[in-house]
């Protein structure tokens, strides 16, 4: 290879290297600062919010024909259902059609546990984080959403 050709190749490689390296680091900086989640690009807010002794969680319960309430044990359901309690905080913001679809899916999950669900209730649960030294005060539940578990 002649010297000018080799120099041009080196320049081209250096340009490519800079585009890729600075481009990727720039995208990561942007997603961090702007807080965007374009997975696998992330804002990397892993454990970034300070935790306190108050814990907020969500509970999904189904009501059977006899009016008895059963809390859905997501960890005993197939993996496809397991993270779906994370949808609970967003349920109020969904359109009625999409919210009903989610509730029907949870009611069907209850059916897998031999519970015939007529209604689905979503609760916001607030309580103290247990420290492993005796029982703490009982958590408080607030009803957030109620929807029909059976389709029209």
């Amino acid at each position, binding site marked *: 290879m002649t010297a000018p050709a080799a120099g041009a190749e080196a320049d081209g490689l250096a340009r490519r*290297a*800079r585009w890729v390296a600075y481009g990727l680091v720039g995208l990561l900086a942007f997603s961090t600062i702007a807080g965007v989640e374009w997975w696998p690009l992330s804002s*990397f807010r892993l454990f970034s919010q300070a935790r306190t002794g108050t814990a907020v969680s969500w509970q999904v319960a189904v009501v059977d024909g006899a009016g008895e309430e059963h809390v859905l044990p997501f960890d005993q359901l*197939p993996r496809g*259902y397991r*993270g779906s309690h994370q*949808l609970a905080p967003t349920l109020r913001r969904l359109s009625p059609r999409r919210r009903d679809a989610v509730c029907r899916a949870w009611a069907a999950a209850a059916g897998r546990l031999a519970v015939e669900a007529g209604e689905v209730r979503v609760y916001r649960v607030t309580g103290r984080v247990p420290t492993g030294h005796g029982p703490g005060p009982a958590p408080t539940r607030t009803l957030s959403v109620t929807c029909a578990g059976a389709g029209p």
Partner: protein
Amino acid sequence: MTRRPILPPPAPPPRSPVTGARMSRPADPGAAGTGGRAAWPPLAALRRIDAALVAPATAHQLAGVRAGLAVVIALRLATGPYAQLAGQPAALFRPPDVLAWLPSMPPFAVLVGLQVLGTVAAIAAAAGRRATATFAVAWGCLLVLAGLRGSLGKILHNDVLVLLAAVPIMLAPAGARWGDLRASCRWGWPVRAALAVIAAVYFACAVQKLRHTGVTWVTGDNMRWILYAAATASRAPTRAVALFIADRAWLSHLTAAGLLGVELAAPALLAVRRTRPLFVILAALLHLGTWLTLGLDYWGWALTVAVVALPASWWTVAGGSTRRLRRK
């Protein structure tokens, strides 16, 4: 009759250490355009970083890093619970934007097919068989399957580091082979770009903690409550480690400071060849601790750091060959 020059002819420009060709720019970037004056220190530092990015390395090093990342991808693909995702109701499907074109979770056969295809491709890439193409196929399969795993309601970060660090390796020029000790800037920049990505990711994690919580992330009770909540959730292999740390305020502060310190120090430790093995050890301890206390599976991050940072530390270019290999 020829006229003798009054002034001596200017010295030819220096040769590029990469190609041997004459460079068109002055050799000392700090003196460029400054009339010989030293450049502003931050600018000089940026120029040194830039020069390091495009410095030469051997094809052997790039092939080693690519093989290592391929092994990490193969392990993630082979051990992930992807087949169990089948059967998720469409109403519960919440894919990341990159998979928003999918209407619902793919069926079992597609999930297993992607898992097998990706694992075989990753093994082929690790063995150097059509490495550029097979590495890209394996990466694509992990991207889809890890994205689907994060479609259950919560975005997951377990595979993010290997996916991002692999991008420069995928975009590297083809032809890097084991045992090829020719040094060129063709092979150096992909590994250094992967190092930069890893450093940026860890640093971003630290920046977000400081941005959203500040120093109270370390000085407050934050870590104790994280650990108490983890002990309650019982996802870790044992509750004892989390409770042991959480019950001792000083140890909780020390743990938080250590974690934040490792993340903040990542760019500095990864930029210097001699401290890269130290960061590999610190990252391994950080993720081992995360698993023991919180039960979170981040071994893919620890392995990714090791397979990128260690070869970049072992095989350094010195006069066109590598020190470690020259000794053999």
